[in-house]
């Protein structure tokens, strides 16, 4: 009997050990995925207004190049990118859309007759692997420029490497170093400034309190700094919450947020779309959506997936920061070219029309614009000088003109839209047109002191 008991205890100890291993695996994978979430998480970049309805293109893709229909046959110009691709977190759509743009350019004259050869390295949030990827791009592939990087930690790992070698990266940023170092400039705002935008919109609604809730992952303190500064300047109390992800008790989280905010307050979320969705749906099931004055969300919530899953109860109730021009509402030449390129060349872009592929398009568009300005050979020096020289460029995808420049920090996209669900789509919210992110955020203020305030884009 005693032996049997001992055996059972041993069995249970073994099970606890295995369960611990499973839990660790879960943490790892969730931190990948929750990392897909916040600060150092994909959340920042996972801005995905994903529309499936607007892929009809009225523009011929040949307008992407200077010689329509003529394939480029010269010496290739090698460019590279490093993107996160792991279970639960994939940014490959961004590089794949950039590649689609480059392919279009190659089919229509290239860069002065030279095709672009684009090397995409994927990584799994492993610092050693990321450093090796960067070395491979430089030493083996001999790339002359880095375009389309989107990674949870790549900026943190490689910032000094690029600086040392003189590469000026055009990227979609997530980690703080993507915005706070001289050699990265991003087309997106990232989690901090997008959260600023969402809080700013809520404050404009004269709420009495802000509850700002985000994933409990490294970097949350950096993100929280922006909303805290905005709320303090408006003399509105702010409660900062963090949640372990993946969230296993969404109802509790929603109840806590609403209780803390009060009837005249606002709840602002900074999570990946799946995590934000479970909180908002739990709130809806419990009838909490009307228990606060407003719900806000940083850019990751800008997805039609989310709008569809939420349904009409959230129309005009949830306000989402949008870093890029909403594709459904826009018919500018750049937007139409983007849709046409996606249709003809974007078979590898799994997420469809949306912010991810918009970012890839925009980064490639800026790179091509810079490359076309080069007279002479395409070297690391000439290409990166051209990238750095991009100034007040109208991408057609952003609220304001885009500038790289020689600045210690880069928040090149600091003017945003606000969207709200409308029967399964995200549309511009009332007063949700282009609005500058407040300089009350000390990081934004520092950038504007150095770079000034870029003009609003004529197409926005």
């Amino acid at each position: 009997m005693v032996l049997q008991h001992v055996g059972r205890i041993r069995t249970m100890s073994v099970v606890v050990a295995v369960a611990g291993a499973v839990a660790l695996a879960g943490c790892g994978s969730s931190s990948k995925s929750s990392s897909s979430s916040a600060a150092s998480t994909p959340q920042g970049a996972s801005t995905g207004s994903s529309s499936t309805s607007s892929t009809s293109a009225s523009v011929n893709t040949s307008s992407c190049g200077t010689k329509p229909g003529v394939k480029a046959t010269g010496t290739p110009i090698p460019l590279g990118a490093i993107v996160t691709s792991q279970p639960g977190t994939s940014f490959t759509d961004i590089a794949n859309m950039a590649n689609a743009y480059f392919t279009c350019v190659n089919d229509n004259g290239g860069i002065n007759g030279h095709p672009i050869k684009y090397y995409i390295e994927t990584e799994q949030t492993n610092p050693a692997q990321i450093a090796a990827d960067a070395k491979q791009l430089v030493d083996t592939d001999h790339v002359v420029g880095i375009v389309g990087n989107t990674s949870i930690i790549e900026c943190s790992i490689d910032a000094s490497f690029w600086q040392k070698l003189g590469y000026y990266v055009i990227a979609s940023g997530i980690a703080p170093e993507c915005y706070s170092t001289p050699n990265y400039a991003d087309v997106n705002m990232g989690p901090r400034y997008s959260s600023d935008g969402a809080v700013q919109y809520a404050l404009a609604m004269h709420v009495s309190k802000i509850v700002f809730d985000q994933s409990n992952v490294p970097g949350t303190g950096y993100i929280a700094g922006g909303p805290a500064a905005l709320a303090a300047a408006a003399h509105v109390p702010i409660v900062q919450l963090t949640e372990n992800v993946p969230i296993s008790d969404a109802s509790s989280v929603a109840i806590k947020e609403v209780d803390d905010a009060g009837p005249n307050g606002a709840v602002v979320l900074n999570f990946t779309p799946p995590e934000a969705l479970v909180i908002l749906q739990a709130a809806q099931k419990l009838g909490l959506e009307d228990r606060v004055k407003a719900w806000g969300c940083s850019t990751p919530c800008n997805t039609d997936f989310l709008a569809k899953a939420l349904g009409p109860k959230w129309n005009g109730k949830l306000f989402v920061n949008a870093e890029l021009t909403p594709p459904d509402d826009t018919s500018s030449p750049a937007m139409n070219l983007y849709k046409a390129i996606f249709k003809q060349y974007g078979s590898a872009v799994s997420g469809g029309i949306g912010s991810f592929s918009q970012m890839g398009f925009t980064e490639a568009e800026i790179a091509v614009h810079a490359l076309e300005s080069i007279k002479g050979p395409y070297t690391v020096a000439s290409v990166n000088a051209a990238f750095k020289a991009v100034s007040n460029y109208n991408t057609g995808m952003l609220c304001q003109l885009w500038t790289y420049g020689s600045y210690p920090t880069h928040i090149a996209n600091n003017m945003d839209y606000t969207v709200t669900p409308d029967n399964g789509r995200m549309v511009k919210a009332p007063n949700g047109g282009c609005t500058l992110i407040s300089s009350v955020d000390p990081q934004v203020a520092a950038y504007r002191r150095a770079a000034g305030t870029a003009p609003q884009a004529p197409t926005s």
Partner: protein
Amino acid sequence: MPSWQDFQPFIVSGLALGGVYALSGVGLVVLYRATGVVYLAFGAVGAMGALIAWSLINHAAFPDWAAWIVAIVFSAAITLAYGMVFGAALAKREPLVKAAATLGLLLVLFGVMDLLWTSSGGASRSLSLPTDNGGFQVGSVQVVWTQVIAVGIGVAIAAATGAFLRFTKLGTAMRAMANDREITATLGVPVRRVEAAAWLGCGALSGVAGLLLADLVALDATTLTFLVISSLAAALIARLRSIALTFVAAMVVGLVHDLLTPIQSLTNYRDMTPFVLAAVALLLLSQRRVISLSREEA
């Protein structure tokens, strides 16, 4: 410290989660008693069933009820298939080997789910049961029918399984196998068939739990796969034996977890609840073992 009123809504959500943990924990205990296998893939199987149901509803225009049945049948079938293919080979292996083998199934399913239901491009999914649309008010607390059903199913499955193990021939055979598989076989019990019934039942419960958790928590492969940890903690607290104790432990895990939410200083540690409770239970069990050994020595 929050007031009693502040805690009330968390009691409801905690009980609902506890109900589903109980349902899962009972499935794990029944399978363990019959086969000696701790089925770590329980959550992943349920998650895949729920994702299949979501696809059938949203992309194949299946009626909801038909999709739910497919989810449960899939979960039962894949669990049974695993048991039939690997059960005999693992029967005489160490508990760790048996558990690690189910971890292999978990990882395979996890990879397949990531491939088929990718989260790139901001994709997010949800599976809502019609019972979400109704409910009632208890004081200031809104109770949704799905939460009531979760608790109800947890109670019903625990009671039915307890009765099944106690009063049916198959249940008696399962209990006998828990004590000694070899002796049970020599007594003429069709061991493979009894094991198959346990695998099938456990799989069906994982399908039901997957659907309920997809609604109550999230339709997300990672989340659902690793929610098995809470159920496993409940099963461990019950020493992988007692159905009644598994039920009680599961409800306690769910309740304690959610009741910690409004307490600011503890809220970020509430996910430790299943581990802490399981560790405390194991410590107490170890003490009892020392005492019983001492008594025998005396």
